[in-house]
């Protein structure tokens, strides 16, 4: 997967697009990881 970018606009459209895909994954990941992290607290 290689890309040619001729304008900053195209480059930003692409990179921001990738970031917008990552963001929901990050948020969901945080919830899951926090549950994993504090599992013992819940058992108490």
């Amino acid at each position, binding site marked *: 997967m290689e890309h040619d970018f001729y304008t900053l*606009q195209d480059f*930003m*459209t692409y990179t*921001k*697009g990738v*970031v*917008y895909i990552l963001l929901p994954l990050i*948020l969901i990941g945080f*919830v899951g990881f926090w549950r994993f992290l504090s599992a013992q607290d819940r058992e108490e």
Partner: protein
Amino acid sequence: MSHDAAHKPIMSPFVIVTGILLVIGLFITVMRFTGGLAATTNLSDYNPWGIWIGFDLLVGVALAAGGYVTSAAVYIFGMKRYHSAVRPAILTGFLGYALVVFALHYDVGQPWRLPYPFIMQSGTTSLLFEVGACVALYLTVLFIEFTPAPLEWLGFKKARNLVVKLTMVLTIFGVVLSTLHQSSLGALYLIAPSKLHPLWYSGYLPVFFFVSSVVAGLSMVIFEGSLSFRYFKDKMDEAHMRDKEDVAFGFAKAASFVLAGYFAIKVIGIAVDNNWAYLATGYGAWFLVELLGFVALPAFLYAVAVRDRSMTLVKYTAGWTVLGIVVNRLNVSLIAFNWHLPASERYFPHWMEIGISLFIVTIGVIAFRFIVTRMPILYEHPDYEAH
């Protein structure tokens, strides 16, 4: 609790005024969707955004900030004594955002295409994309945060308890989304440095918008709390009555100091762009009115009110601060925008634009009243434990 107040028709002038505003609003709605934007607005090729964006969107979103501010204070910062303020704030936030989205249907040319950025093609470099995504998500979050009230009202215990379990996650999501879109509304104008007056244009615009949204949220909770006390006193339970002043003074103290911070960064904004000279112009005078009259003054008045434990001063200062937020948002979007154009090309709203804005506020008031008089907003449902 006085019981006869609940049965007498509350404010029949209220019914008359809202009735008239609704009829006018419906009439303009028909005009808008049969005659187009040209028939109902004073928008032009120089002035693509009028009060339907400047007031309905920018002011609407800022004043609906009470939801995230209050829920963050109570659930994240652990200020349990403000718990009774959460539900009314969430309700106002939810109604506010729902009406913002509703109002956008009047403003955009092809409202049925509003989901296009998310289902057809995404303009990821646009701040408006970010605003749209966050507003859509946050409206959903607010809706879920609001559902315990109707679920208790309807008696769906299991569903209600399930939603309550999500409180923490929803609150954190809410704060994240609010931080993003409150600031991005200011960032919308970053792309137009040649159109917005230098005193209002700043690289800090997103920060200004975010910080002032906190002030708006705090002040709206106080302002709306005092109105609720006036008109829906009979719906309040003991906890509400008891905590009412505690909430008002606590929030006033917070608002005062956040305003102090806002004042500081506004001054820094002038300094980093070396805009001092503009202060001596006409726009500069108006800028100082905003900065001193609607930022510094309420910061001071809130402080005096908290020191003197004056409930009256807190209430009036809250109202004044809310007005200050309106002034700021209109300055950025309309008054200081296109300042370089000759007077003949400047924008002034058509009466029908004002009519729709009033119509939308009216719908909000009616919906608030409908919900507050039925669902457990200002009191705790006896069958459920507070969460």
